[in-house]
């Protein structure tokens, strides 16, 4: 029953705005601490790889951004369903504000991957399964961004993007597995739910910290963006006017 109530309230931007201030603070602090600890631990204290030496340390940026690039797209697909089925205003805002973030993460994952590939594989770029599907995801993000820009009416733009996000989400696994048809150069997933990682704990522990940290960064970014967007879209309403008129304490 309480879950249902929470669900219902999530439809109200005003309620979300009033509740989410502390959440944003929590996520921001957690992201800062975790990423700081994870990066310093990974770059300065984790043991060097017996084959790759120190070059593997870029993994502590590459893997989290790559994981997040996919997760954000899944979030966009889920937001698309929420928007089309329940017409939830917040879902539209997620769909709008998180595209640049996902685009940035995908670009970062591709860039760090290229930098890592040069010493390890001997080449900046290879069209193998994972690199290609990540590149395609970059194009899908661009498509969402361009479609939103092209449609003048915000409501129609939101629903068009929702549909595109859903179609894209269905396609990502197909694209991924079709590209993996080729014998692939990229290693498999680093973290699996069912198995222990094939790395010693000194190496993967900082990575795990970084992954959790970047999810917190995503949370903080999401909430901050949503709060801005709520104020922007609801600027004509009474509660926003009162909020803005009130002196800061």
């Amino acid at each position, binding site marked *: 029953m309480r879950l249902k109530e929470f669900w219902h309230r999530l439809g109200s931007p005003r309620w979300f705005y009033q509740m989410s201030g502390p959440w944003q603070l929590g996520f921001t602090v957690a992201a800062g601490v975790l990423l700081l600890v994870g990066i310093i631990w990974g770059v300065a204290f984790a043991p060097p790889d017996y084959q790759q030496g120190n070059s593997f340390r870029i993994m502590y940026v590459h893997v989290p951004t790559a994981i997040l690039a996919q997760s954000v797209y899944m979030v966009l697909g889920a937001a698309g369903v929420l928007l089309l089925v329940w017409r939830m205003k917040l879902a539209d805002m997620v769909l709008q504000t998180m595209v640049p973030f996902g685009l940035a993460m995908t670009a970062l994952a591709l860039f760090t991957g290229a930098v890592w590939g040069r010493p390890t594989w001997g080449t900046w770029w290879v069209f193998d399964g994972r690199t290609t599907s990540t590149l395609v995801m970059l194009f899908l993000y661009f*498509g969402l961004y361009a479609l939103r820009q092209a*449609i003048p009416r915000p409501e129609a733009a939101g629903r068009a993007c929702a*549909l595109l996000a859903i179609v894209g989400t269905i396609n990502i696994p197909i694209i991924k597995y079709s590209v993996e048809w080729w014998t692939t150069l990229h290693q498999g997933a680093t973290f699996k739910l069912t198995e222990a990682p094939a790395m010693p704990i000194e190496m993967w522990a900082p990575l795990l910290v970084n992954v959790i940290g970047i999810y917190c960064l995503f949370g903080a970014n999401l909430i901050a963006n949503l709060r801005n967007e709520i104020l922007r879209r609801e600027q004509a309403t009474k509660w926003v006017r009162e909020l803005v008129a009130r002196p800061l304490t």
Partner: protein
Amino acid sequence: MFRVQFHREWLSMMRSRDEVLNPLVFLFLAVTLFAMGFGGDAKVLGEFSPGIVWVLVLLANLLSLEAMFRRDFEDGSLEQMVLLADPQFLPVLAKITAQWCVTGFAMTLLAPVVALMLNMPVSALPTLMVCLLLGTPALSLVGAVGAALTVGLRRGGVLLALLVLPLYLPVLIFGVSAVVDVMAGIDTVAQIYWLAAISMLAVTAAPFAVVAAIRISVEQT
């Protein structure tokens, strides 16, 4: 319902032949450009021919997409279709089928000529045609989603390419790899099954997405 709509689409396409012919002429023109671009080296051209044929089929298909809903959108019949009491799955599917007949299916029939211009070995032609026959429905279906989303926009052209081409990638991969494998003498049943599976999935899912996209496009005007 399907037959009526299909008949209507067929008539309207036959009365605007240029729209039907332009993508096909583009296909031949682009093939000629590629042949010139390779400087007449028939052997190299033959090696790359599967990729060239497939990419050009993709692009020619893309060119035909923009016109797919444009006229119906402008004269209001798309709006009438949205207002239908019956499920709109069938008319949409009929529309896409008609479009496929003059693009994907026509290109399948023309493929041997195109492939021979590119010096593809004759033994690979049956596989190429089967792959095109099974793969191009997915192109028309997925493309229709993009076309329906962008039909109301003034400058939809480049955007349409940006939205649709990434989704064409699986068809391209399996289509090309099947033809490459058959040229190397390897069994290609797996890729052909994959193409069929992708098209089946597209047939079942894409028309719903097209209906939703048409509604969004119609409502925003």
